[in-house]
């Protein structure tokens, strides 16, 4: 479990987060949603410890991340995996070297054991046999999946995903969502996804918080989205007239 406890963040006079309180539950796919500029990325960076809040605390179970030294934060991070918006795959390393990197750094395993684990992770994301290729030699969707494989190679307790569907076609985006969701269930991870993809919300949103102008304006799950009367959520999820019509019809048909 990760808990954001009254998080404030300002850049000069610009208040980006204004007192966010939210619990990201273990074993669930937790979503941070909101329009561009709502403060999602800043909140994610604060949760993962890449940025310090102006005020407030981030709790990893019983540990306050904000009170830890850099070295102590690094210890916590051994239990964290992250998928970046731009994948952040090391472009001068092969796919295998990318996935193996955390093991090379922190595990005392034989090279055979590491290769076995890499093969397992690649198989898990349906990318068998691309070990020797470089990130530039595979598609954007494949890069995302390699990013996921690298993120869970050390069996992390917490998984962070920053806009995992950005730049992907809808079908590939759904594949990525399903993959993240199934890995979360499989390893009972606390997964936090930062997204503005409506499909992700409706497919995998088990615990959702909606940010608007730095405020938490709605929380719930995908089942509550359809019935919401929250104007902010309505305007975010059902932004197009087509979707608004579809929703009305769905509600009429019960």
């Amino acid at each position: 479990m990760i808990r954001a406890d009254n998080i404030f963040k300002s850049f000069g006079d610009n208040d980006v987060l204004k007192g966010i309180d939210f619990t990201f539950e273990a074993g669930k796919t937790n979503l941070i949603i909101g329009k561009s500029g709502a403060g999602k990325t800043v909140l994610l960076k604060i949760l993962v410890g890449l940025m310090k809040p102006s005020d407030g605390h981030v709790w990893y179970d019983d540990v306050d991340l904000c009170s830890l030294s850099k070295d102590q934060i690094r210890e916590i991070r051994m239990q964290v995996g992250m998928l970046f918006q731009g994948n952040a795959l090391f472009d001068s390393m092969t796919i295998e070297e990318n996935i193996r990197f955390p093991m090379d750094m922190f595990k005392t395993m034989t090279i055979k054991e590491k290769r076995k684990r890499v093969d397992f992770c690649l198989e898990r994301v349906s990318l068998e046999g691309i070990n020797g290729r470089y990130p530039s030699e595979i598609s954007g969707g494949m890069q995302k999946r390699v990013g996921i494989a690298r993120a869970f190679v050390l069996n992390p307790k917490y998984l962070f995903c920053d806009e995992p569907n950005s730049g992907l076609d809808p079908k590939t985006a759904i594949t990525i969502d399903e993959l993240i969701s199934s890995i979360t269930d499989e390893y009972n991870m606390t997964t936090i996804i930062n997204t503005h993809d409506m499909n992700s919300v409706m497919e995998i949103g088990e615990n959702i918080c909606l940010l608007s102008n730095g405020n938490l304006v709605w929380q719930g799950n995908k089942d509550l989205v359809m019935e919401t009367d929250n104007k902010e959520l309505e305007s975010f999820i059902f932004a197009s007239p087509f979707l608004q019509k579809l929703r009305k019809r769905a509600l009429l048909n019960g």
Partner: protein
Amino acid sequence: MFSLGFLEDFGRFLLWVPQVFKKPENWTMYYKETIRQTYDIGIGSLFIVFIISIFIGAVTAIQFSYQMAGTLIPPYYIGYIVRDMSIIASAPTITSIVLAGKVGANIASEIGGMKQKEHIDAMEIMGVNTSAYLVLPKIIGAVIAIPMLVTLAALLGSLGGYIASVPTGLFQQSDYITGLQSFFIPWNVVMMYVKAVVFALIIGFVSCYQGYFVKGGSIELGEASTRAVVVSDILILIADYLLAVLLTV
């Protein structure tokens, strides 16, 4: 404004340096990275060091020969002058200034590029101390490779002087060889190595710092690379002066 920026950079640098010397997470990974960096800096700079050293040695021999023509100074002095010029000045200083351009810009853009592509964030999330893993091997690589390159530059400088003067008939081979063997002061070699190590540290730290703290996009990355070269060059010249004063007292 300038002094405020300088103080800010200096303060950040002082806070950052202890992170660089933290205990490595995995000695083998650091060792491999150090070997790779030493190879890249050393082998990657051989050609440019070769060309520069040969030509500086050649020009030194020809210029001094021209200036000493018609004087009572014996011709073998040319070899002596070329040798000591190479050892004391051109090999450590000119080579390091050139390497600040080649190696320094390369290091700054490599680390800066990693920063912009979120590679550094990705490593930090994994629990890697990026200040140490990305910087320490480069510093050690520079401290190993640059003195070697400087040694080579000193030897090639003398060779350049020979090539430019003996086969062209400017003066006799025996004179040049006698000059090379005359008035040798071993302390000059010590000075050369002290300078090489200090300059290597300057190039390594300045370039890594500029890359690690780059902000913005490709324009800022270019500026950081340029700054790495300019600041390194200025600090090398200042350090050269200070070392010359300190080591020749």
